[in-house]
Protein backbone atom coordinates (compact mmCIF):
# COMPACT_ATOMS: atom_id res chain seq x y z
CA UNK A 1 0.00 0.00 0.00
CA UNK A 2 1.54 3.30 -1.03
CA UNK A 3 0.40 6.89 -0.57
CA UNK A 4 2.23 9.83 -2.12
CA UNK A 5 1.29 13.49 -1.77
CA UNK A 6 3.55 15.62 -3.94
CA UNK A 7 3.80 18.82 -5.95
CA UNK A 8 5.91 17.18 -8.69
CA UNK A 9 4.19 15.81 -11.81
CA UNK A 10 3.98 12.03 -12.19
CA UNK A 11 3.71 9.68 -15.15
CA UNK A 12 0.50 7.67 -14.76
CA UNK A 13 1.58 5.07 -17.33
CA UNK A 14 4.92 4.46 -15.63
CA UNK A 15 3.20 4.28 -12.23
CA UNK A 16 0.72 1.73 -13.55
CA UNK A 17 3.50 -0.39 -15.04
CA UNK A 18 5.44 -0.34 -11.79
CA UNK A 19 2.32 -1.11 -9.77
CA UNK A 20 1.42 -4.12 -11.93
CA UNK A 21 5.01 -5.41 -11.94
CA UNK A 22 4.88 -5.86 -8.17
CA UNK A 23 1.78 -8.08 -8.22
CA UNK A 24 1.88 -11.83 -7.62
CA UNK A 25 -1.72 -13.08 -7.44
CA UNK A 26 -4.05 -10.37 -8.66
CA UNK A 27 -6.19 -10.98 -11.72
CA UNK A 28 -7.62 -7.47 -11.91
CA UNK A 29 -5.98 -4.04 -11.87
CA UNK A 30 -8.04 -0.83 -12.02
CA UNK A 31 -6.58 2.65 -12.30
CA UNK A 32 -8.24 6.04 -12.15
CA UNK A 33 -6.43 9.17 -13.26
CA UNK A 34 -7.89 12.64 -12.74
CA UNK A 35 -6.84 15.30 -15.25
CA UNK A 36 -7.12 19.09 -15.11
CA UNK A 37 -9.94 20.06 -17.50
CA UNK A 38 -9.56 23.38 -19.25
CA UNK A 39 -13.29 24.20 -19.10
CA UNK A 40 -13.49 25.00 -22.77
CA UNK A 41 -10.24 26.97 -22.82
CA UNK A 42 -11.10 29.31 -19.93
CA UNK A 43 -8.82 27.71 -17.36
CA UNK A 44 -5.22 28.94 -17.13
CA UNK A 45 -4.18 26.86 -14.15
CA UNK A 46 -5.43 25.01 -11.11
CA UNK A 47 -4.00 25.50 -7.63
CA UNK A 48 -4.44 22.78 -5.06
CA UNK A 49 -4.01 23.55 -1.38
CA UNK A 50 -3.78 20.77 1.18
CA UNK A 51 -3.27 20.17 4.89
CA UNK A 52 0.19 18.64 5.26
CA UNK A 53 0.17 15.85 7.81
CA UNK A 54 -3.58 15.33 7.85
CA UNK A 55 -3.63 14.63 4.11
CA UNK A 56 -1.32 11.64 4.35
CA UNK A 57 -3.09 10.32 7.48
CA UNK A 58 -6.55 10.65 5.95
CA UNK A 59 -5.56 8.93 2.71
CA UNK A 60 -3.70 6.13 4.52
CA UNK A 61 -6.84 5.46 6.59
CA UNK A 62 -8.98 5.28 3.42
CA UNK A 63 -6.54 2.91 1.76
CA UNK A 64 -6.48 0.62 4.81
CA UNK A 65 -10.26 0.57 4.86
CA UNK A 66 -10.42 -0.23 1.13
CA UNK A 67 -7.84 -2.97 1.51
CA UNK A 68 -9.75 -4.70 4.31
CA UNK A 69 -13.16 -4.29 2.72
CA UNK A 70 -12.29 -5.40 -0.82
CA UNK A 71 -9.45 -7.86 -0.16
CA UNK A 72 -6.90 -5.90 -2.17
CA UNK A 73 -3.49 -7.32 -2.94
CA UNK A 74 -2.18 -3.79 -3.48
CA UNK A 75 -3.32 -0.18 -3.66
CA UNK A 76 -1.68 3.08 -4.66
CA UNK A 77 -2.79 6.71 -4.26
CA UNK A 78 -0.84 9.64 -5.70
CA UNK A 79 -2.23 13.18 -5.28
CA UNK A 80 -0.58 16.40 -6.32
CA UNK A 81 -0.79 19.85 -4.74
CA UNK A 82 0.43 23.25 -5.89
CA UNK A 83 0.00 24.70 -9.38
CA UNK A 84 -1.16 22.48 -12.26
CA UNK A 85 -1.80 23.21 -15.93
CA UNK A 86 -4.67 21.94 -18.10
CA UNK A 87 -4.30 18.24 -19.10
CA UNK A 88 -1.87 17.52 -16.28
CA UNK A 89 -2.67 14.57 -14.03
CA UNK A 90 -4.01 15.73 -10.65
CA UNK A 91 -4.11 12.36 -8.98
CA UNK A 92 -4.20 8.63 -9.52
CA UNK A 93 -5.58 5.60 -7.76
CA UNK A 94 -4.62 2.00 -8.56
CA UNK A 95 -6.14 -1.13 -7.03
CA UNK A 96 -5.36 -4.83 -7.50
CA UNK A 97 -7.63 -7.70 -6.46
CA UNK A 98 -8.25 -11.31 -7.48
CA UNK A 99 -11.43 -10.38 -9.40
CA UNK A 100 -12.70 -7.34 -11.27
CA UNK A 101 -15.71 -6.46 -9.11
CA UNK A 102 -13.52 -5.83 -6.04
CA UNK A 103 -10.86 -3.92 -7.96
CA UNK A 104 -13.49 -1.61 -9.49
CA UNK A 105 -15.40 -1.15 -6.22
CA UNK A 106 -12.20 -0.34 -4.29
CA UNK A 107 -11.11 2.26 -6.86
CA UNK A 108 -14.54 3.94 -6.77
CA UNK A 109 -14.61 3.79 -2.97
CA UNK A 110 -11.20 5.48 -2.79
CA UNK A 111 -12.23 8.14 -5.33
CA UNK A 112 -15.44 8.95 -3.47
CA UNK A 113 -13.55 9.34 -0.19
CA UNK A 114 -10.70 11.33 -1.74
CA UNK A 115 -13.20 13.77 -3.26
CA UNK A 116 -14.91 14.65 0.02
CA UNK A 117 -12.76 13.46 2.91
CA UNK A 118 -9.14 14.17 2.01
CA UNK A 119 -8.11 17.75 2.89
CA UNK A 120 -7.52 19.22 -0.57
CA UNK A 121 -9.03 22.41 -1.93
CA UNK A 122 -8.98 23.35 -5.60
CA UNK A 123 -8.82 26.85 -6.97
CA UNK A 124 -9.37 27.58 -10.65
CA UNK A 125 -7.33 30.39 -12.15
CA UNK A 126 -8.88 31.88 -15.28
CA UNK A 127 -9.07 35.11 -17.23
CA UNK A 128 -11.71 36.37 -14.82
CA UNK A 129 -9.63 35.74 -11.72
CA UNK A 130 -9.39 32.90 -9.20
CA UNK A 131 -12.33 30.92 -7.85
CA UNK A 132 -12.38 28.21 -5.19
CA UNK A 133 -14.12 25.12 -6.52
CA UNK A 134 -17.31 24.45 -4.57
CA UNK A 135 -17.94 20.98 -3.17
CA UNK A 136 -20.74 19.16 -5.00
CA UNK A 137 -23.72 17.63 -3.26
CA UNK A 138 -23.37 14.71 -5.66
CA UNK A 139 -19.90 13.98 -4.26
CA UNK A 140 -21.21 13.96 -0.70
CA UNK A 141 -24.12 11.76 -1.79
CA UNK A 142 -21.71 9.32 -3.45
CA UNK A 143 -20.30 8.44 -0.02
CA UNK A 144 -23.64 7.05 1.12
CA UNK A 145 -23.40 4.00 -1.09
CA UNK A 146 -20.51 2.57 0.90
Amino acid at each position, binding site marked *: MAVRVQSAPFDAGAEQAQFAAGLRQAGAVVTFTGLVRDNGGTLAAMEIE*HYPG*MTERAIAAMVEQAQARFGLEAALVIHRHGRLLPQEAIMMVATAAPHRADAFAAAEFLMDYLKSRAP*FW*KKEIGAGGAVWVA*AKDADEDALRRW
Partner: protein
Amino acid sequence: MQVTVLYFAWLRERIGQPREVVETGAITVADLVAELAARSEGHALAFADLTSLRVALDQELSDFAAPLAAAREVAFFPPMTGG
Protein backbone atom coordinates in the same frame (compact mmCIF):
# COMPACT_ATOMS: atom_id res chain seq x y z
CA MET B 1 -5.06 25.95 27.27
CA GLN B 2 -2.98 26.86 24.26
CA VAL B 3 -4.25 25.73 20.87
CA THR B 4 -2.84 26.15 17.37
CA VAL B 5 -5.63 27.12 14.97
CA LEU B 6 -5.19 26.49 11.24
CA TYR B 7 -7.21 27.93 8.34
CA PHE B 8 -7.36 26.67 4.76
CA ALA B 9 -8.65 27.78 1.35
CA TRP B 10 -11.08 30.74 1.33
CA LEU B 11 -11.25 30.67 5.11
CA ARG B 12 -7.50 31.36 5.24
CA GLU B 13 -7.92 34.18 2.72
CA ARG B 14 -10.77 35.84 4.64
CA ILE B 15 -8.98 35.64 7.95
CA GLY B 16 -5.75 36.77 6.35
CA GLN B 17 -3.45 34.25 7.97
CA PRO B 18 -2.88 30.49 7.77
CA ARG B 19 -2.48 29.92 11.51
CA GLU B 20 -2.59 31.53 14.92
CA VAL B 21 -1.88 30.32 18.42
CA VAL B 22 -4.67 31.15 20.86
CA GLU B 23 -5.19 30.86 24.60
CA THR B 24 -8.65 29.46 25.26
CA GLY B 25 -10.88 28.03 27.97
CA ALA B 26 -13.42 26.74 25.42
CA ILE B 27 -15.09 23.42 26.21
CA THR B 28 -16.43 22.64 22.74
CA VAL B 29 -15.37 23.50 19.20
CA ALA B 30 -18.41 25.81 18.99
CA ASP B 31 -17.16 27.69 22.07
CA LEU B 32 -13.78 28.17 20.40
CA VAL B 33 -15.47 29.39 17.21
CA ALA B 34 -17.39 32.02 19.25
CA GLU B 35 -14.09 33.28 20.71
CA LEU B 36 -12.36 33.32 17.31
CA ALA B 37 -15.28 35.11 15.61
CA ALA B 38 -14.89 37.98 18.11
CA ARG B 39 -11.25 38.56 17.12
CA SER B 40 -11.81 40.67 14.00
CA GLU B 41 -14.30 41.49 11.27
CA GLY B 42 -12.49 39.02 8.99
CA HIS B 43 -12.90 36.30 11.60
CA ALA B 44 -16.59 37.15 12.09
CA LEU B 45 -17.21 36.99 8.34
CA ALA B 46 -15.29 33.74 7.97
CA PHE B 47 -17.27 32.02 10.71
CA ALA B 48 -20.66 33.50 9.75
CA ASP B 49 -22.03 30.26 8.31
CA LEU B 50 -20.81 27.12 10.04
CA THR B 51 -22.78 24.84 7.71
CA SER B 52 -20.23 25.67 5.01
CA LEU B 53 -17.28 24.80 7.27
CA ARG B 54 -15.57 21.66 8.47
CA VAL B 55 -13.29 21.15 11.46
CA ALA B 56 -10.48 18.75 12.31
CA LEU B 57 -9.07 18.13 15.81
CA ASP B 58 -5.46 16.99 15.77
CA GLN B 59 -5.86 16.12 12.07
CA GLU B 60 -9.01 14.00 12.49
CA LEU B 61 -12.35 15.22 11.12
CA SER B 62 -14.70 16.23 13.93
CA ASP B 63 -17.76 18.48 14.38
CA PHE B 64 -18.68 21.74 16.05
CA ALA B 65 -20.45 20.10 19.00
CA ALA B 66 -17.40 18.02 19.89
CA PRO B 67 -15.41 18.74 23.06
CA LEU B 68 -12.01 20.30 22.39
CA ALA B 69 -10.62 17.97 25.06
CA ALA B 70 -6.83 17.92 24.83
CA ALA B 71 -6.61 18.85 21.15
CA ARG B 72 -3.44 20.81 20.36
CA GLU B 73 -4.23 21.59 16.71
CA VAL B 74 -7.66 22.72 15.50
CA ALA B 75 -8.17 23.26 11.77
CA PHE B 76 -11.09 24.98 10.06
CA PHE B 77 -11.76 24.72 6.32
CA PRO B 78 -14.46 24.58 3.63
CA PRO B 79 -15.80 21.24 2.36
CA MET B 80 -12.97 19.39 0.67
CA THR B 81 -12.60 19.19 -3.10
CA GLY B 82 -9.90 16.61 -3.73
CA GLY B 83 -9.68 13.86 -6.32
